[in-house]
């Protein structure tokens, strides 16, 4: 395969940035690998994927593992993912209080994008600010 370092210009228009917002309902009906595929297929297409409800730790672990196996240096230019979610810091008050109250819901809103296109500018408990670049 030829080395491609810039946007492929294929089926995705290079003019804009596509954002996929996936509802908790939609995710609930999927198996772990189906969720991961949905996310990574979106990211491979250079989309920003926003999950209404985040992943379980086990799913995050598999997402990292899967992401690693799909990075192909010298290949299609995929360098991995950037991911941010609320509430910030598992050790933050939210996480701890959440656990005290028997709430083992995963992080809520989660933003995932291609590592080379998305950069977190600022993050705290109430705000995630990201910069998305076009190529």
């Amino acid at each position, binding site marked *: 395969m030829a080395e491609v370092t810039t946007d492929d210009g294929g089926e995705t228009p290079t003019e804009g940035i596509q954002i996929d917002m996936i509802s908790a309902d939609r995710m609930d009906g999927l198996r772990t690998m189906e969720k991961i595929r949905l996310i990574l297929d979106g990211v491979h297409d250079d989309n920003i994927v926003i999950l209404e409800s985040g992943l379980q730790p086990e799913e995050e672990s598999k997402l990292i593992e899967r992401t*690693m196996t799909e990075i192909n240096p010298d290949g299609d230019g995929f360098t991995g993912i950037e991911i941010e979610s609320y509430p*910030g810091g598992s050790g933050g008050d939210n*996480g701890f209080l959440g656990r005290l109250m028997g709430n083992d819901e995963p992080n809520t809103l989660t933003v995932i994008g291609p590592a080379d296109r998305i950069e977190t500018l600022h993050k705290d408990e109430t705000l995630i600010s990201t910069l998305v670049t076009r190529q």
Partner: protein
Amino acid sequence: MGILTDLRSSISRATSSLFTGGEPKRIGIYGPPNAGKTTLANRIARDWTGDAVGPESHVPHETRRARRKENVEIKRNGKSVTIDVVDTPGVTTKVDYKEFLEHDIEKEDAVRRSREATEGVAEAMHWLREDVDGVIYVLDATEDPFTQVNTMLVGIIESQDLPVLIFANKIDLDEASVQRVSNAFPQHETVPLSALEGDNMDEVYDKIAEYFG
């Protein structure tokens, strides 16, 4: 293939420990790239067995394969605990071979390193789900601990109900802030240390014995 062998060995381990009443606990040293995991693993191994685990480097992703040091016997207050120390590649969600070029590494080598690094991280994640009995999570105390990778990893470790210690490393550096690390993970015990200088290693071994003994 590696996965299959791992699986087989973990099954045989599970069955053999049923009969012998337990083997050394496998303690995984996890954390982001460059935190000082290998430096720590080497120090522990040198202090108690006399030899090292693997090379340390300022270049991230120096460790690209999990490396094990078996039967490390740590003596504390007349008791002794024996652990297997597993040094793992720094966990990340992205690897760009171009970053290696900044460390004066040729492209071909950089590509190979990236490939090994991604395989190593995938393997480390797999190990974490199947093959470790406890975790030392190493952070560079001069850096912001509130990263998504740290949050996810500690969350994954918690979900497995593994005993975990947070190590705030590099306290020999002026910019180190142990407080910032313990604020980030108040639900866990934070142990300050300098793996490089050997500072506070007594407490390190006390805690290892207490948590993983």
